[in-house]
């Protein structure tokens, strides 16, 4: 899975041979992968296959029984707890399916929290929080409480909160899981556009094929392993000819 990047760019996340057990359950059984700066990687696979466990291990929330995770130049296993927490606060953002906003705080206050925790002064935090809500098209909801937002609006506030610190990696676990098709689309467009603009790598766990289609690449996890699509030639993924609809209308069955 460690495709060398054409430009010789170093991977932002480099995971090697990750093994993690919960008692008798072998949640990860030797996973290796690289994620490059600005790359959106979709992680798919059946329920219980280890996707969330993988995400938490890459983020340093869970510590693997064996194997290593490197973020940038730092190997998570070689850091003490405090340093690891600090790294996570400054360099990682998180988006979950729902319910991640603090219910007693307004949208803007939710977005400023990670900045305040990172030591940014209150005035600046508020300015940056506002700008981030604007960037996600939910600037008008800054004063609303999470309960007063629709699922799609709340999700965009959550993305604003995850991106406001300009993390190097965004971890998203089923970010569209609670949304209808259209809100899922607008959420994914916002998430991937902004992450790409910022050069943020995204690890996107999802069951949903349409959500995964916003990624640059996907892996499938089965039984705690990456299931390689074996050594068969896959369709050409040259983005140069993907930007047009020519390839699309070449399948007459689909063009109505």
């Amino acid at each position, binding site marked *: 899975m460690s495709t060398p990047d054409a430009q010789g760019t170093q991977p932002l996340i480099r995971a090697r041979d990750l093994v993690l057990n919960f008692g008798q359950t072998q949640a990860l059984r030797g996973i290796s992968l690289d994620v490059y700066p600005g790359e959106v990687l979709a992680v798919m696979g059946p329920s219980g296959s280890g996707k969330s466990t993988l995400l938490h291990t890459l983020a340093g929330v869970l510590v693997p029984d064996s194997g290593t995770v490197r973020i940038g130049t730092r190997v998570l296993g070689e850091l003490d707890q405090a340093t690891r927490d600090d790294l996570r606060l400054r360099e990682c953002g998180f988006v979950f399916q729902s319910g991640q906003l603090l219910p007693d705080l307004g949208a803007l206050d939710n977005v400023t929290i990670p900045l305040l925790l990172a030591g940014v002064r209150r005035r600046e935090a508020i300015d940056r929080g506002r700008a981030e809500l604007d960037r996600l098209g939910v600037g008008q909801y800054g004063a609303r409480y999470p309960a007063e937002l629709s699922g799609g609006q709340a999700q965009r506030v959550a993305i604003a909160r995850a991106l406001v610190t300009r993390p190097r990696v965004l971890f998203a676990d089923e970010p569209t899981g609670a949304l209808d098709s259209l809100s899922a689309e607008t959420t994914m467009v916002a998430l991937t556009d902004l992450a790409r603009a910022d050069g943020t790598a995204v690890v996107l766990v999802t069951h949903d*094929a349409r959500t995964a*289609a916003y990624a640059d690449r996907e892996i*499938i996890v089965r039984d705690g392993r990456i299931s390689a699509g074996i050594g068969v030639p896959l369709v050409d*993924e040259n983005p140069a000819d*993907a*930007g047009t*609809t020519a390839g*699309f209308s070449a399948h007459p069955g*689909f*063009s109505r």
Partner: protein
Amino acid sequence: MDNAQTLLGLLEAAPSHGYDLKGEYDRYFGGQKPLAFGQVYATLARLIRDGLILEAQGGESSGGPDRKSYSVTAAGRVRVREWMFTPDTPEPTLQSNLFAKTVIALLLDEDAASLLDAQRACHQARMRELTRAKRDADLATILTIDHALFHIEADLRWIELTGARLTELRAGVRGA
């Protein structure tokens, strides 16, 4: 679906007479539309000409007049695997060929999960391409592409479900 490759795969699973081969085919894939005898023999003739199967005299057929039985050559075995493990271009008529590949893989004790995964990857790659094509497109184009995306997604769900039921399907195919 690709009848020639499917018949070839069935012959690899068990050499047989044309009459029995048609019966096997209809049992798995006939559904509403059983294969015509004429088509079976025309296909067999083509497979012989291409060196993919051999014809032998004699043996017992469970019915029908034919005295010839057919078995797969080494080249035929290679062809079956090429067909089986090469993903098809996503399109609405895909399902039957993919189902045929899956059943033949199970009959031959090949890795059916891998071929489904390869197809899955191919479908997902197509969805990524189409999703990229939606960027900056006008609404009419976006809606047309969405239609395609939903179709490919339906295929994908079928692939996933079939993958999750391979053990069951294997038992059915073997026990049948």
